């Protein structure tokens, strides 16, 4: 994990160097260098998170076999997005479907936790 964080920091530093060159060179406003700097900062932040995070404890991980709720959530999100052009009625239907999906996900996660508690 530490080496992974170093990779992320190294890559962020490389982006930062390229961004610094662009700050010096750019004559067309701040958008261009700001985009690249933003990318460097995001990766550095990810590196900091990874560096501070411990590796998952224990060698075993419970694996969910299937998740109908995740599919329902995706369908709901897509319907709601399509509703942005089709109309409010579809946004509402999509939101409802997505809510069902979210509820299903919560149910699946709870069932999994209960299963892990029993072991």
């Amino acid at each position, binding site marked *: *994990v530490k*080496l*992974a964080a170093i*990779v*992320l920091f*190294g*890559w962020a530093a*490389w*982006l930062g160097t*390229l*961004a610094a*060159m*662009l700050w010096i*060179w*750019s*004559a*067309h406003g701040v*958008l*261009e260098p700001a*985009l*690249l700097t933003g*990318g460097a900062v*995001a*990766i550095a932040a*990810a590196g900091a998170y*990874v560096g501070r*995070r411990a*590796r*998952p404890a224990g*060698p*075993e*991980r*419970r*694996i*969910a*076999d*299937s*998740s*109908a*709720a*995740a*599919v329902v*959530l*995706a*369908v709901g*999100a*897509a319907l709601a*997005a*399509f509703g*942005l*052009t*089709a109309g409010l009625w579809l946004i509402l239907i999509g939101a409802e479907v997505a809510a069902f999906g979210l509820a299903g*996900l919560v149910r*699946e996660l709870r069932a999994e936790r209960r299963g892990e508690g029993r*072991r």
Partner: protein
Amino acid sequence: VSAVAVPAPRRGVVGWLASTDHKHTGAKMAAAAFCFFIASGILALVMRTELAQPGMQVVSTDTYNQLFTIHGSGMIYLVLTPLALALGVYLVPLQIGAADIAGPRTCLFGFWTYVLGGLVMYGGFLTDQGAGRAGWFSYTPLSGGQATPGTGMDMWVIGVILATLGCLIVAGAILATVIGLRAPGMTMLRLPVFTWSMVATVLMVVIAFPVLLVLMGLLLADRHLGGIFDSAAADVTYQNLFWFYGHPVVYVMFFPFLGAVGDVVATFSRKRFFGYRPLIVSLLAFAGLSMSVWAHHMFATAKVTNQYYALTSHMLIVPGGLEYLALIGTMIGGAILLRTPMLFALGFMALFLIGGLTGIMVASPPLDYHFTDSYFVVAHFHYTLFGGSLFGAFAAIYYWFPKVTGVMLREGLGKVHFALLFVGANLTFFPMFFLGVDGMPRRVANYPADAGFTGLNQVATAGSYVIALAIAVFAANVVVSMRRRVPAGPDPWGAHTLEWWAPSPPPRHNFDSLPAIRSYAPLLDLREETADSRQQTAVGASRTGAVAP
């Protein structure tokens, strides 16, 4: 890394649709990408048929605009990017000895979001005014509500948002897997070349894709509410934001296939990869540089820092050259086996070289002023994405198909497929260089009969049908191989990396046990150790006078 036993998988359609197994998600994503590839390829065939003669024979100009928009958008948002990520979803956990991908539900959600986005985008053809028709980058003001009204264009924007969001989520899952789920002994410096290429890929995705999501949200708001992209300065802002995504995505569509080719070349050269660490450094340097070259697509606007982008674009030659050096160095002195995956890998190297060298030309502002928006650019990026990425994708498909299905693809049909695709790609795209230099603009449905473009366009159209034939041969190969099954076994190629340790196809939890991991090529290490111990046994036996086995 071991997995906990879970209830028996749901059978039937629902079980398949909702399976969280990373192998199922990866395979579904690859299958969906292939379906979109066929659809987008058919659109290209219609365009090429229209362009075979001057004048309008097959479609109207408005339909032609829809065709090139959805062809380009389909190939980029729905085919090559998801296919590249699908390979990662399937293979990265296997290559690093993990039991599953990080966040399998999230990954499944990402897959479905992508598929539904693709359907929404293609659904635009069913609307009154047709599908999106402002090109795959949909510059403003052309893509605005006044210039391109209609639900189809809105559906294009929404489709891009959903597909991009899906790919972003999937990429995040891959990155989290590499960081958090590596097997004991699988350090970052022991990751296989393909996995490293996926790391470089997803780093670009997590920076670039959110920018496109925001941009498409703004475009949708502008189309309905106005006031966002109203000024000329805002149009340049749109281009800056778009290409901040649009250039890195070229490498997102390329790196995973480069990594796949790296694994293929090492396996079929019967050699350890040459220059593993320099290659990793060059991949990361390449990915960083590719984030900083986006505005070379905007040289002609004179509103960006041309010198900087020309410099960084030319700097790409260094890591690109290192990658070629590593691939060629791996082959030198190797016992090369010209099986179908290796043929596609060699095709990838040859054709991407043409794409790369012409990339140097368009990275130079004075040359780009002439080439921009001409068929030269079309030829360049098709040599990069078709010659490079697609040949790399087929190398990967022929190489890993036995792992995914447990069945070998037919070698003979594979070689016919390769030959047809190689000839077809060159027939189609090479004439476009000359058309572009002679001044034929891209995205036109018609051209003057006396412009001298007809002959070269006819050659390109003939080539596109050869490509279609090649794809038909591939489909036939898959059908024949799946019906008359030749079992592959766990490792039919004598490969180097960990996924070949698992049975074919791998079980739900991927591995029952893992070998010792001392390098990026644990299986090669194992074979070398076995050979060494046999040699020592033979030497010892000859000294004692015994007969060696």
